[in-house]
Every structure is written in C-alpha cells, then in structure tokens.
C-alpha cells in the first residue's frame, strides 16, 4: 500500500486563528493552485429585507478553495443583462461574472434570476429563474453556487446539501441540521444523554441516530418534516450504528442481541431483523455500497479492527484494508468508487481515502484525532470531526487532499454526516 502524507507543510502556514464568534467560524486551509477569478455582483432586490444571494454565493465559492473572488467595488447587477459591461470585467481580471435580481411574484413569493457569463469568451454560461418564498432565498442561493461551480469546473458543487452533527455544550447534546455552509442551524433533537451516529436517509427526509437516553445505545429514526421519531428495535443489549440502504427501505444496525456485536438488516416497514454477520468477533460500523450490492463494515475477526466488505447476496466477506493495525469507520463516495476511513498511524487517527478499483490509499489529513468521515453529495469533499486544542471541530478535505476547511463553534462539534 502506497500511503503518503502530503501537503503537511503547506497547510501549516495557514493556521490563522479567527476571532471567536457565537456563530460557526470557518477557516480555509490550502487551496487549488490555479484559482478561477470570479466577480459576483450584488443582486438587485425588490425588498431591502431580503437576503442578497450575491453574499451567499460569494461565501460559498470563496470558501471552496477553487475560486478567487474579485471585489465588485460598488458595482451592482444591472436591471438588464444587456447592460453588463463584459469587456470591463475582463479588463479587471475576471474570468466569469455572476449577476442577478429578485423580483416580486404572486402570493408573496419571489423570483430569483441569475446569469453567469464567461467574460473571456463573452458568452453566457447559464441563466435561470427560481420562484420561492422569501425564506427560500438562501437555499436558492446555494443552488446557484452549485450551478456556477459546475459550469466553471465541470463537476457539481457541494453547496446545497445539508449537514447533521452533534453539538455538545456542557452536559447537553444537540443534534443539529444546518446548510452545508453551517448557516441556518436548527436543533432537531436535544438530550442530556449522548447522541451519536446520525445518518441521513437517501432522500434527505429522515435521520437515523443513536441516543443513550435509556442508559444504553438505541437507534431512532426521525422524520425531519414533523419531528416524529421511533425507536427501530427493542432488544436486550446495545442497538447502534444505523446505515441506510440505497432504496431507504432497510437499515443495517449493530445488535448485541444474540452474541457480541454483530450486524443485522432491519426492514423499516415490518421492523423485522435478519442477522447478517456471524462469528465471535466484533462486527460493526456497516455501510451500504451505493449500488446496493455490498455491505462494508469494521471487524476485528483478523485480530485487529479492519474494514471488510460482504456481498449482500451471499454474505461472503473479504478484507479491504491491510495497512496498519487500525482501519475503521468506512464511508463510500456516491459513485461507490472511493472509500474514506479512519487510519491509525504512529498513535494518530487520520482520514484516508482508498480508490476501490486499484486499492491505492492516500492519507488526507495530518491531525491527531480524526473521526467520522462522510462524503459530500458531489463526492469531491469529505466531512469529518477532529480535535483542535482539545475541542471538537468539523473539517472538510477534498478527496485529492488539496483543500481543507474547519468549522468551529463554542462547544464541541462531532459526528458529522453530509446529506442531500
């Protein structure tokens, strides 16, 4: 296995502490070598009270590490795209310009319009209109960011998904859901006992998670629309590690019902469970492959915890990780081609990514206590938790290891999961 720690020195240079705020603080570490210069013009608004999509898009693209944001220097979007001085923006060094407007629509709704221009070739790359409620402007802005990212880089942007994570403050645990830029955070469940392992349903409408409110781990599924939740199983012992099947109809869970921790498949309609792994070793941390053919999981059947995968058809398992004595917490990219996991080396727990076709592994981080990797819906970023100065923070790293961000807040952030 060809493991490398890369960019360690480069990232060291960017560790600048930002002033502590009540809100999430975001720190960007590293970035692409050739950033695309983009100007985002403030949108013209029908009402001053509306959020300006230009601000949201500037933040999204600016934090990504792939774009260099040009200051519009007082320029605003013209009312008609004809009036956009493309040549002028080219002379100012922009490769692309985004302009837009919000106009009133029927029933108190608003129409958000935007245009993206390639000012080098003087052509329009995109033009879209979205009708939404005033409260939906933020979500629309993230969708525009996704589209601009895709048009300029050729791969979908990661901005419009949602993240779930645990915020621990004192003895209180909040399961929160926020936009991918960590804004708009809402507590969906709160407890004085630990909550861990949130997992998004494939359609993004539900979260499964583990709560210790009964003095033991129990898996709950919560509908995010109405807040209703159910314990998926009542058994003796621990019930943990929920993972959704790609069709959303099954959960893989770890139960200690029959013998030590083993993986079971739970039908969400009937709540019937079927045992999936056997043997006296610890089997846990299941995750389905996106094509529904494999279950990846952690097992110590070979003496140390390693990642295995088993066919969901035959149950036959084979070992996936071999390098080192501790490889756990598998997460799969949406295309099923890359696996992120936690790899221990020299007493440090690091995020690594394996190309599942050629089994090449690359270590992506250089911190000490990395945990809980999960992929962005676009497959290009990995979200994980780590410790900085003893405090839990969330971090992202691009799958090539080049771009990293950290999200921190007062309190411990942990157990992140990225959903649609």
């Amino acid at each position, binding site marked *: 296995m060809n493991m490398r720690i890369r960019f360690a020195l480069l990232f060291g240079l960017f560790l600048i502490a930002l002033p502590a705020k009540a809100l999430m603080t975001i720190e960007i570490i590293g970035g692409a070598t050739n950033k695309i210069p983009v100007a985002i013009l403030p949108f013209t608004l029908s009402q001053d009270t509306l959020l300006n999509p230009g601000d949201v898009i500037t933040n999204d693209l600016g934090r990504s590490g792939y774009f260099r944001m040009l200051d519009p220097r007082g320029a605003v979007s013209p009312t008609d795209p004809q009036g956009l001085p493309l040549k002028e923006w080219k002379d100012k060094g922009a490769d692309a310009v985004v302009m837009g407007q919000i106009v009133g629509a029927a029933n108190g709704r608003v129409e958000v319009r935007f245009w993206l221009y390639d000012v080098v070739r*003087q052509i329009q790359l995109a033009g*879209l209109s979205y009708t939404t409620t005033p409260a939906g402007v933020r979500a629309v802005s993230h969708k525009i960011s996704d589209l601009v990212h895709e048009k300029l880089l050729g791969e979908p942007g990661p901005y419009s998904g949602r993240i779930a994570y645990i915020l621990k403050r004192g003895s209180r645990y909040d399961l929160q859901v926020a936009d991918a830029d960590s804004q708009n955070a809402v507590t969906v469940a709160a407890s004085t006992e630990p909550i861990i392992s949130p997992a998004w349903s494939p359609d993004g409408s539900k979260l499964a998670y*583990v709560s210790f409110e009964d003095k033991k*781990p129990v898996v709950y599924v919560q509908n995010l629309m109405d807040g209703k939740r159910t*314990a998926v199983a009542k058994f003796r012992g621990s019930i943990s590690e929920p993972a959704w099947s790609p069709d959303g109809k099954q959960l893989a869970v770890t139960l200690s019902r029959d013998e030590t921790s083993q993986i079971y498949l739970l039908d969400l309609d009937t709540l019937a469970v079927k045992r999936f792994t056997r043997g006296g070793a610890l089997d846990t*941390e299941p995750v389905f492959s996106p094509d529904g053919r494999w279950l990846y999981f952690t097992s110590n059947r070979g003496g140390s915890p390693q990642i295995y995968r088993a066919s969901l058809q035959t149950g036959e398992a084979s070992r996936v990780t071999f390098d080192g004595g501790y490889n756990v917490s598998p997460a799969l990219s949406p295309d099923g081609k890359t696996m992120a996991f936690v790899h221990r080396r020299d007493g440090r727990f690091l995020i690594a990514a394996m190309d599942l076709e050629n089994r090449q592994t690359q270590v992506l981080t250089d911190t000490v206590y990395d*945990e809980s990797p999960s992929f962005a819906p676009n497959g290009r970023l990995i979200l994980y938790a780590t410790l900085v100065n003893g405090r839990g923070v969330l971090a992202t790293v691009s799958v090539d290891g080049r771009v990293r961000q950290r999200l921190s807040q007062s309190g411990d952030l942990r157990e992140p999961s990225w959903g649609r």
Partner: protein
Amino acid sequence: MKHIVYVAVLAAILAGCADKPTKDAVIEDRGLRTQSAASGAGGVDTQGVGTPAIDSRVISGGGASATENRAAGTSPIAGTDTKQSSVLETRPLAEASTEVKPLTDAQAASGASAGADGAAADASGQGTISLNLKDPKSPLAKRVIHFDYDSAAIRDEYRELLEAHSQYLIQNTRAKAILQGHADERGSREYNIALGQRRAESVANALNLLGVPELQVEAVSMGEEKPLVEGQDEAAWQQNRRAEIYYPGE
C-alpha cells in the same frame, strides 16, 4: 483506589437527590405542543425542519449570443426542479424548552435508596459479609471493573467483587443487574461501542459462570461517551476502560 473514592463521592452526592422521582425523561416538553407527539416518553426533544419549496425554469440572457458550458463534458442543467412539499417553518428552538439536570450515568441508579431485594439479602445473612446494596462496607459497593488496553479479560483482582454480586443476584431472583461497558476515547466512537459491549459481556459471562441466570443480567455499552476521568493521557484512559454494575430501581 481512586475510583472507589470516586464512586463513594458520587453515591453521597446522589443520596441527596434520592427523593426526586427518577424519570426517564431528563428534558421537559414545554412549548412544543405543535409538534404532535414529537418526543414521546424519552428524554429527547425533537423538531421538524423542512426545505423551502423552489420552482425553477431556464431564462434566456441578453448580452451574449450562445449558451454553453465552459467545462468539457457537463450536461445542460434541465430545469433544476426541486419542488418539495413543505415550506420551512420557523419554530421555537428546543433550547427554550429544555431543562438540564446534572444526572450522571452508571452510578445514577446505584446511589441511594435500596429496594426490597436489598433488604431481603441483608436478612438472609452471609456470616460477616454484608450483602446489602446500601452498605458502603459491603463488597457490593464496588461496582467498577477496569480492563487492560484492547482487552476484555477480567483481571484476578476482581474475583471477590464478582462473587459478591453473583451471590446477591442468586439470592435475589427478582434483582436485575445492568452491566455497562466503557472504552477510552481513542479511535472511532462507533467501534468503541463494540469494545465497551465486549467488556460488559465479559462481566455478564463471569456472573453467569458463577451461577447467575442469564436473564438477570443485561450487557450494554456506553462506548467512550461516559468517561470517569477527563484527560488525554494513559492515566485517564486506564480509568475509563471499564465495566460498571448497576441495579435499576435500586
């Protein structure tokens, strides 16, 4: 020695709280009436979040003639139609409705008031060994078993502790023991649940071998979530790799 003192202190603190009824729900449900049975009996408040409804359509531009993807290989975005059923509602956050009580974990149940079973054990008399859960001098007051790194093997020094608890459970057939396994904080929280579970099972098996019926013990795991000692060094980790015995409703 350190942990015994710790347990004793905790027990003393909890004795002060003994009059309060022990409820499952640690958090109260005030101000959440709109959420139709959101939280049920458990100690967790939940609430809904939706995604704003968005309609979209392609519009034409003015300044330029052609619409084109700059990057190779991208497909045109065909009307990002993300119509979703519900509009995001702003509801009071759970923060306003939460009451936090300093209830702790394993020893919470074991502190103060002894049940009828405890009294029965006392009456049965065991020579000089007290099998009264309330008695701080009884070997039953010892509830914590520590483990070596990456191990669930019970060390010899815990023989007396386990024998006392097995005798108590054999004599009190209605008593039930919950065995909570714990791991130190290193590595995956999820894998650490399995490690803690193994430790709890190890204690359960030892009690079964000493004659305690299987249905009188339940092995569960708290993973790395409830450390006895905070800290990121071997001294703290050593304290935290453990199993604890507690008696619900004690």
